[in-house]
């Protein structure tokens, strides 16, 4: 079943985040993907996440497609202007990539090429508008296309937003849904109480909300994220449990599986499991979560 059909069916969706390689050797990337082929509904392929230069999402999705794996292609405002974005979106359509997800892109200055020139020709809402227009069969200049791409469209939402920021996030969310967004992947969720506070403000009947569940690697990583990334908070007990555990990896996997279980119980549309470089651990996480 395609991701779109799965979302429509209301069954629990499982996505895996798969960072493309920094290099032209895709063998490990492919091996890891093959391990979970058939177990996840699609692999989400980031477009240079954290502004770190890697193989493109489009190229990597096309590569996985050759091996029969469904993907979510990410288009990003940061590095391409409206010409390049539309060109890539059309190419993705022709390659039969079924899902597309618009993201704003993290700050270039925080990545590994801080001297690069920022593009941001279109913002996130405008990029979603662009996708919608191309799907209808016209480009941004109003010219009729010879064949329009068909996609299941997604975007991101900041689940860590609260107060005034959350109100703005909700406004954006409504705009996104009006622009044809069918699924929304959230920032990583650890603190379920906080997530519940957030989710009650969203009408989940309008779009499938898919929380990201991030596989932690160590207590140090958890502490770092908790302290430095405003939108994510990690409960102290979780950090303590990792610290105390004799087998840290096992504990981290267990923790991820538990969060997935809770989110499922909460009636979320699905999860996206992010392993940031530990893609080979994805089967273990899925086993632990009984997915």
């Amino acid at each position: 079943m395609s991701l779109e059909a799965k979302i429509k069916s209301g069954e629990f969706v499982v996505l895996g985040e798969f960072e493309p390689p920094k290099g032209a050797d895709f063998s490990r990337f492919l091996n890891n993907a093959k391990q979970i082929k058939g177990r996840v509904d699609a692999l989400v392929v980031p477009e240079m996440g954290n502004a770190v230069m890697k193989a493109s999402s489009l190229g990597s999705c096309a590569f996985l497609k050759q091996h029969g794996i469904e993907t979510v292609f990410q288009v990003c405002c940061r590095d391409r202007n409206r010409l390049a974005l539309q060109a890539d979106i059309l190419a993705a359509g022709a390659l039969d990539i079924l899902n597309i997800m618009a993201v704003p892109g993290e700050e270039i200055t925080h990545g590994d090429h801080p001297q690069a020139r920022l593009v941001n020709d279109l913002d996130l809402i405008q990029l979603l508008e662009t996708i919608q227009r191309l799907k209808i069969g016209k480009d941004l200049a109003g010219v009729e296309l010879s064949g329009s791409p068909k996609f299941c469209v997604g975007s991101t939402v900041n689940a860590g937003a609260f107060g005034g920021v959350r109100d703005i996030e909700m406004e954006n969310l409504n705009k996104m849904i009006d622009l044809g967004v069918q699924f929304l992947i959230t920032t990583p969720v650890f603190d379920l109480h906080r997530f519940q506070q957030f989710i009650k403000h969203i009408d989940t009947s309008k779009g499938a909300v898919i929380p990201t569940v991030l596989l932690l690697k160590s207590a140090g990583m958890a502490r770092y994220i908790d302290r430095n990334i405003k939108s994510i908070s990690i409960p102290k007990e979780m950090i303590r449990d990792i610290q105390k555990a004799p087998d840290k990896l096992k504990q981290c996997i267990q923790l991820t599986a538990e969060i997935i279980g809770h989110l499922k119980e909460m009636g979320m549309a699905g999860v996206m499991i992010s392993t940031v470089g530990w893609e080979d651990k994805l089967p273990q996480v899925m086993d632990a979560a009984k997915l």
Partner: protein
Amino acid sequence: MIVAEKKPIEEIIDQVKDFQKLLIAGCNECVTVCEAGGKKEVGILASALRMYFMNEGKKVEIDEVTLERQCDHEYLEEIRDRIDKYDAVLSLACGVGVQFMAEKYFSTPVFPGVNTCFMGAAEERGVWSERCQACGQCILGETAGICPISRCAKRLLNGPCGGSTKGKCEISKDLDCAWQLILDRLKELDRLDDYEKIMPIKDWSTERAGGPRKVVREDVRL
């Protein structure tokens, strides 16, 4: 200087039509020199608006002031005692001045009366053209004093593109090819050897790409 252009009167009217007491504020610096927002332009705009509102049968009070600089606390303070008299300010300063005004008088609506265009110079009376994009790392020393970032349509750093024809840029025959100008001047300075050197990939982090910029000088801070 900062070069600006007057906004179309229709656009200005659209911005201020719902206010009863307006202050039109000019600036005595760049916008005066480029004849877009100095005392003279404040006067002309005020008359045009008075006429418009009169024809519409609307009673709108319009006052005029021209400050020495709108990008300066000291001069902006001069209107503090009367700012509350106005429903809105129409500032004819560049975008910097408009914002400084808005920051200072937080509860008064401020509207721009000009479009701020670029940093440039008057080539001749009535003709202004761009000279600098504030890239934050000036390379004029290597390019014979002619800026390829603001003046080459493609921002090329290593010589002209294939479209340069008879000294003109491929995007318009009215535009000099910046690289032709650079080469001519390097020749004049007997520095054509410099042209052989490969200019490295530019660091854009000091340009706007790196986010809003700030200069902090500890030695001159109070």
